[in-house]
């Protein structure tokens, strides 16, 4: 691997109360590429991705040890503001979670909380973000409508547009297609592929075909430990560890 790493975990341990969820994880996600995290349910992949933008901070009873570096800087450094961090590391959740606001207001939210009030600027960014999320043509005439009027797949692309609007450097996808239909899934996968020209993408998925289709690198997690990490082609065709091969060929999971 020659690419520069954008965000990386070093000796990362994570606990829910007394439960040891992540065990000494070392994982570096290369810049401007898609890294997929795969593994059976409960292996800690969602927990891991949520540590990358400190979303677990708001969950009571959790503890973290080790370091996470964004461009080489520790995100738990007292100098690092978690609010600022989350502007740089955006996130798209498992279930589409638009706000009960209009389509426009959903996408504009991130800019508005940053103090952007200029109408023209807001309109410009909303259009750009919706175009990037391949949703513009479907909603351009109904921007004032409530986001709940959209279908599940459209809502998820709206959430992606909303994340893109704040121009993050990294985008985390936490099983983004688990609640939407196959056609919508194909569109979201397409989108993720295109995003890597500008953004660093990390995606958690329980769907191995999806990991194979969209990612450049794949990490296989098992019971909180990193079993294997490498470029996707190698992981899926010639994995080093036997456990990886068994999981990928569907012998367990």
């Amino acid at each position, binding site marked *: 691997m020659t690419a520069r790493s954008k965000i990386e975990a070093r000796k990362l341990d994570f606990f829910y109360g007394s439960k040891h969820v992540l065990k000494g994880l070392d994982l570096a996600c290369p810049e401007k590429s898609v890294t997929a995290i795969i593994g059976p349910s409960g292996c800690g992949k969602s927990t891991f991705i949520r540590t990358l933008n400190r979303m677990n901070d708001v969950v009571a009873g959790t503890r973290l040890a080790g370091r996470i570096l964004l461009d080489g800087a520790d995100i738990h450094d007292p100098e690092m503001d978690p609010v600022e961090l989350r502007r740089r590391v955006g996130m798209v*959740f498992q279930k589409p979670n638009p706000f009960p606001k209009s389509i426009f207001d959903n996408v504009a939210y991130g800019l508005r*909380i940053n103090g952007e009030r200029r109408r023209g600027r807001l309109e410009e960014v909303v259009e750009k973000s919706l175009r990037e999320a391949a949703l513009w043509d479907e909603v351009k005439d109904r921007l004032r409508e409530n986001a709940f009027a959209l279908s599940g797949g459209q809502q998820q692309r709206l959430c992606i547009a*909303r994340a893109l609007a704040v121009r993050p450097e990294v985008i985390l996808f936490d099983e983004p297609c688990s609640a939407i239909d196959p056609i919508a899934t194909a569109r979201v996968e397409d989108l993720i592929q295109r995003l890597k020209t500008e953004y660093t993408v990390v995606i958690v998925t329980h769907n191995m075909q999806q990991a194979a289709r969209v990612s450049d690198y794949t990490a296989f997690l098992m019971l909180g430990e990193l079993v294997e990490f490498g470029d996707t082609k190698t992981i899926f065709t010639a994995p080093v560890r036997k456990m990886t091969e068994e999981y990928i060929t569907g012998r367990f999971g």
Partner: protein
Amino acid sequence: MNKRALRNLKEKSVRTFFFLNGLLAVVVLAGIFLLLLVSAVPAFREIHLREFLFTKTWDPTSPLKETYGILGQIASSVLVTLGAMILAVPVGIGVAAYLSDVAHARVREIVKPAVEILAGIPSVVIGFLGIVLIGPALAKLFGLGHGLNGLNGSLLLAVMSLPTIISISEDSLSAVPPAYGEASLALGGSRWQTLVRVKLPAALSGIIAAVMLGMGRAVGETMTVLMATGNARAFPTGLMQSLRTMTSNIAIELGEVPYFTTHYYALFAIGLVLFIMTFLVNMVADIVLHKYQQRES
């Protein structure tokens, strides 16, 4: 066969029993409303409705000319209630937001029931506090002869409506899906921005209903305002004046009025006006709350 007939009979009688219980509640309520209506209507044989509603002077025992104007009492009720809401709404929403968003689970488990118990304090005890505690304090603070005035009543009613406002607002804030909050945080929103821009708007209809229910309680409250507001029959020009609300007027005069006189009927008519006011407030609260529950499901 016999056994089955017996079971059917039992089934039927149980059903009848519960039906009668339900009917009783409806009949009693309808009866109260009817009594109110029947007792109020004769008042208007001698009083014009317009005079009744829009005259400021209430002097039914005047030796010269009896006047039955309740505008002063309506204004007093509205003034004291609005004062109470101005005090209670920001505090109530603030406490609700604190409990649902900031407080640790353990703090919430203690504070919320405690607040709800506050609703159970007898109104006469709160009125007592108004006379011995808040009255003298207000008199000293504003250099008045006494502190039994509209502000005193507003303060007490604020305390009395707080439990309702806090409890229902907290419920509706806690019912906001956590995914909204997560989405806002993940976009780089601070906790404050998340609360003000996402959670409060999402819970707004529940909060409005909470305020309406609190207001309903304040408008109908009698003993507290009777004790704390000074009972002056003058038209109120501000919260620093002694005033007399519709509720306290009925409570004071109904015990002494000769039965079946115009004065007697007029007091029932005040009750009817009050009933219509609280009914409207509660109905608005109900509609808003209902709409909100529908949207959630």
